[in-house]
């Protein structure tokens, strides 16, 4: 278990979409450098939670504190320290990988040399000039990882980060978004066992409500089975 001041603190967070409750009463604390695995079936509220943490969605109730700042009130102070890897790669299909990364580097005021660094790290230098629409899903995902870590974020929000990646590519991105990155991480995965293996804290969501919050060792196969039943 990693200890230290909390990088993430959620207190009774709720979010609705019209009549539908996407999240209710979610409270969890994650220490700096630790990994939070968010588990749950499709539609349980995992992506909504990640979007709230990314300050892309406002919670309708409760309090969110990220890296010591209340969100969304002071989200502008920490946006540059968040890296989001979601379902969408957030890359323009008609621009090349390099053009996309240079665009993001300029938005984040990162030196353009960093683009070469991350392209090399995901082994996309040779295809960097191809339009993204011509790349395979796996290659696009590698570029999305490069985009998410380009500005050296302190907090990584990872929604199915290894989707579309073969084992080799999965190993390739490990130093960037894995535990070795040293970042605080929030992780969702279609493979709950691998997410549990990486986690310091588990938040299991069922219909938007927390079914379990705590140590992964205490989560157990029985709860896992019940969560996905």
């Amino acid at each position, binding site marked *: 278990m990693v200890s230290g001041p909390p990088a993430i603190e959620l207190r009774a967070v709720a979010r609705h979409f019209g009549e539908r409750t996407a999240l209710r009463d979610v409270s969890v604390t994650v220490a700096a450098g630790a990994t939070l695995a968010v588990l749950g079936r499709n539609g349980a509220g995992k992506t909504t939670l990640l979007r709230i943490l990314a300050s892309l969605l406002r919670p309708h109730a409760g309090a969110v504190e990220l890296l010591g700042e209340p969100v969304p009130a002071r989200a502008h102070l920490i946006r540059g320290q968040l890296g989001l890897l979601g379902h969408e*790669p*957030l890359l323009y299909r008609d*621009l090349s990988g390099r053009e996309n990364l240079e665009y*993001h580097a300029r938005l984040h005021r990162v030196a353009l040399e960093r683009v070469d660094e991350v392209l090399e790290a995901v082994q996309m230098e040779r295809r960097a000039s191809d339009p993204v629409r011509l790349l395979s899903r796996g290659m696009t995902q590698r570029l999305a990882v490069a985009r998410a870590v380009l500005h050296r974020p302190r907090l990584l929000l990872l929604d199915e980060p290894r989707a579309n990646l073969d084992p080799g590519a999965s190993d390739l991105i490990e130093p960037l978004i894995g535990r070795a990155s040293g970042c605080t991480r929030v992780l969702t995965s279609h493979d709950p066992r691998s997410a549990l293996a990486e986690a310091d804290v588990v938040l299991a969501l069922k219909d938007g409500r927390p079914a379990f919050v705590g140590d992964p060792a205490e989560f157990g196969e029985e709860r896992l089975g019940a969560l996905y039943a």
Partner: protein
Amino acid sequence: MRTAMVVLRKDLRLEMRTWETLPAMVLFALVTFVIFHFGLNRTTIDGQLAAGVLVVTLLFAAMLGINRLFVAEREQGGFDAFLLAPVDRTALLVAKASALFLFLVVLEIVAVPAFGLFLLGPSLGHALPGLILLLALANLALAVIGTFVSAIAVHTRARDLIGPMLGLPLLVPALIATARGAGPLLAASHAASTPPGKWVLILALYDVVFGLIAYAVFDFLLEE
């Protein structure tokens, strides 16, 4: 300003890569002139009628650009990427309005001479300086209000309808001022070489007011 330039450069690069917006705007304007030519059953037009035809055509062509302004942002995650960056969000308003302004300038570089050549009775030469002033002010109104409306519409399901339904009523005062200002310039008598000051002033005031409103509320329009 620096961020706005980064986004604008990306938008222009995307347009030059795909040519999804500008050619459609230009073609629409040219086809509309042909339709007016046959619909009015006149070889040439002048005065207030000519001004109305020109301004209405440009307005509807602009709506095509307005509807497509945030398409890449919506479909390819550009909104999220921008909102995750530590930048002033109004830079997106400045960038998108500048892109639309430039598209309108290119549209007019093609459409206005074509209008002068095929539909307008009196020669365009003497009216051109006044017309450029009026169209520049009208473009500013179209760019600011178009970006504002497009940012509202993009989060709705009926975005293709919401854009024109919100945008056209808001643009009516600008349309009136531009058309009334251009009427004397396009008169067969060549009576005026500068547009009436009243309409220029109204257009300029309209630009300033909507520029300030859009600047004040744009940040909130980006929230989900």
